């Protein structure tokens, strides 16, 4: 079901919603197209799932298109993704050719829509080559990079840069993720949808049902890390941290995540994680089907502490989700986690399994502190990281792009 803006009034306030409508009126009828590479799985699809309908809800003529590709294409784009996040990957010219070919196949279907649009948002590298294939484009094209490309594997970035530097503008989640490009680089942190299945309030029976399903003991502390099975999320490090804590506190751990349609590497990582968890009945490794949003929601709400011990990370929406549910978060000292987690304020930043174990023990021994941290985190999310702020940023960006002016104050 498409989200409706009015439904958010109870959470963000009526002024916020009214003002979004006012901004939307200024863009009434503007044709906007979002393009990415998967309809489900991963943070980008989750954002687009609400963003396109809510843009339409405020008067923008927005649509969401997904490019289709075969397994080889997604293996290549996963390698590009990893390369942009700094991993040394081998991407010969023939792989880049396949990348271009798949974009060419897709443009046959998308070209009329894209060339007529007033603004096109291309999300991540997978569909970026579409720009070159739409020479008669009328509108502004914006490349939305959702990942941290601050320290890319240079051979990958050198090729991709020649593709994305033709865009009219780009958007990064944080200044720390950006690369110098010859066009304006805007900064828009992502957000979560408080009314989605993954974030809405759940009643106790729903929590209990999920605990029973996975054999979680409600009497003992629970640590939860929700993320794709990806080496950059360091699931093995989380298991090591859990084993260190279990020497003194009988904690349970849930490592749960789905496979995204554009992530073929996940299976191998999952096998390694299963092996690392072998012989520990209180470590639950759960491969969730796509769309298991309510299960994720329940696991995060059932947790005492939410973990996100990544070694590289984009913004880290699972951190935002954990904070929204009033949980302290122990996260890797990287990427967007650094923006969201402040020591003793919203959780703790750690660099090693030992560090994570230390902070888990600290929190479990300071329950009052845990509660305070949880309350602070929830209010920060309400103020800054819900979809209302995100939508407002995009509306402001579109107004600025349409005006074509870069002055400090823009009256619309």
């Amino acid at each position: 079901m498409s989200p409706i803006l009015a439904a958010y009034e109870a959470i963000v306030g009526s002024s916020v919603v009214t003002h979004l409508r006012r901004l939307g009126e200024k863009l009434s009828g503007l044709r906007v197209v979002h393009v990415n590479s998967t309809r489900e799985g991963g943070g980008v699809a989750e954002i687009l799932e609400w963003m396109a309908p809510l843009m339409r809800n405020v008067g923008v003529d927005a649509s969401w298109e997904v490019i289709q590709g075969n397994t080889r294409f997604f293996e290549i784009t996963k390698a590009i993704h990893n390369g942009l996040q700094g991993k040394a990957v081998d991407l010969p010219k023939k792989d880049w050719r396949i990348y271009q070919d798949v974009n060419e196949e897709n443009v046959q279907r998308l070209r009329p829509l894209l060339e007529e649009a007033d603004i096109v948002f291309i999300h991540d590298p997978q569909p970026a080559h579409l720009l070159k294939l739409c020479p008669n484009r009328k509108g502004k094209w914006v490349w939305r990079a959702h990942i941290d490309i601050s320290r890319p594997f240079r051979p990958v970035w050198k090729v991709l840069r020649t593709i994305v530097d033709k865009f009219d503008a780009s958007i990064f989640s944080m200044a720390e993720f950006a690369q110098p490009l010859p066009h304006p680089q805007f900064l828009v942190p992502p957000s979560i949808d408080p009314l989605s299945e993954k974030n809405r309030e759940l009643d106790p029976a729903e929590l209990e049902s999920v605990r029973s399903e996975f054999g979680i003991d409600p009497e003992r502390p629970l640590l939860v890390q929700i993320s794709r099975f990806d080496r950059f999320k360091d699931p093995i490090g989380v298991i090591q941290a859990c084993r260190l804590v279990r020497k003194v506190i009988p904690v349970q751990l849930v490592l749960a995540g789905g496979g995204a349609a554009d992530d073929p590497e996940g299976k191998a990582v999952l096998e390694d994680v299963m092996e690392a968890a072998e012989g520990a009945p209180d470590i639950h490794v759960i491969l969730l089907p796509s769309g298991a949003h309510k299960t994720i929601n329940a696991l995060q709400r059932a947790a005492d502490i939410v973990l996100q011990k990544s070694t590289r990370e984009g913004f880290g929406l699972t951190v935002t989700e954990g904070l929204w549910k009033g949980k302290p978060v122990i996260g890797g000292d990287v990427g967007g986690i650094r923006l969201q987690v402040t020591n003793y304020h919203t959780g703790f930043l750690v660099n090693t399994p030992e560090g994570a174990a230390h902070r888990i023990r600290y929190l479990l021994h300071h329950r009052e502190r845990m509660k305070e941290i949880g309350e602070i985190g929830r209010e920060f999310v309400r103020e800054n990281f819900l979809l209302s702020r995100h939508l407002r940023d995009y509306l402001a960006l579109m107004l600025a792009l349409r005006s074509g002016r870069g002055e400090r104050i823009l009256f619309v």
Partner: protein
Amino acid sequence: MTPFEVKDCALLIRMSGLPPAMNLRELRDRIASCGENVLYHHFCETTLRPTFDDPDYRNDFAVWSKLYLGDRVLAERLGILDPYSMGGTEELRAATLEIIDDRLGELTMVPWVRPGDEFLFKEATTVVFDTGERIHAPKELAPAIRRMTNGSVYYHFLEALRRPPVGKDDFSSWILEEGEKYSPYLVSLGSIDIQFHSLDHLRKELVRALMQSGGET
């Protein structure tokens, strides 16, 4: 009395294009040459930026000096700078450079940061729009402010200080249309120390101050 037009704003932040600063000397040189919008952003627009932190200082240079350069002396000196009390951005720039130059003169080595902790220079466009809401009398200000978004509070109370009449927030300017009739409101608004509030706290402080002066609850 002309009705008060409530505006709201969204901050659209972008990279300035300046190279990052890896050490205090580079920070000094970039501050010396950056555009006014860059300086303004790092001193004045920080409260409107999405954040999970409630830092000790409201300007980014002081926060960076404390957290990443590890120079608490410099952070304290920069942190007390009040951009709204300066005659303009150039005066603010000169004051900032003076503090950094003094500090560089005191130190035996230039403090630096590890890769990943560089100071990144940004600037922003404030997109301002009319909310359609109107306030008809000063006594209605407190309840109206209570309902305002952070963007409205920022635009009318902080950003206004840089617009003519410089140094005067929009609420005070509006109340002054009636001369001295509502002077208690003006005294209350003038008593708020804007340096130490997040926008959420500032909203509460404005409501509290106006109610004490006779505004509606």
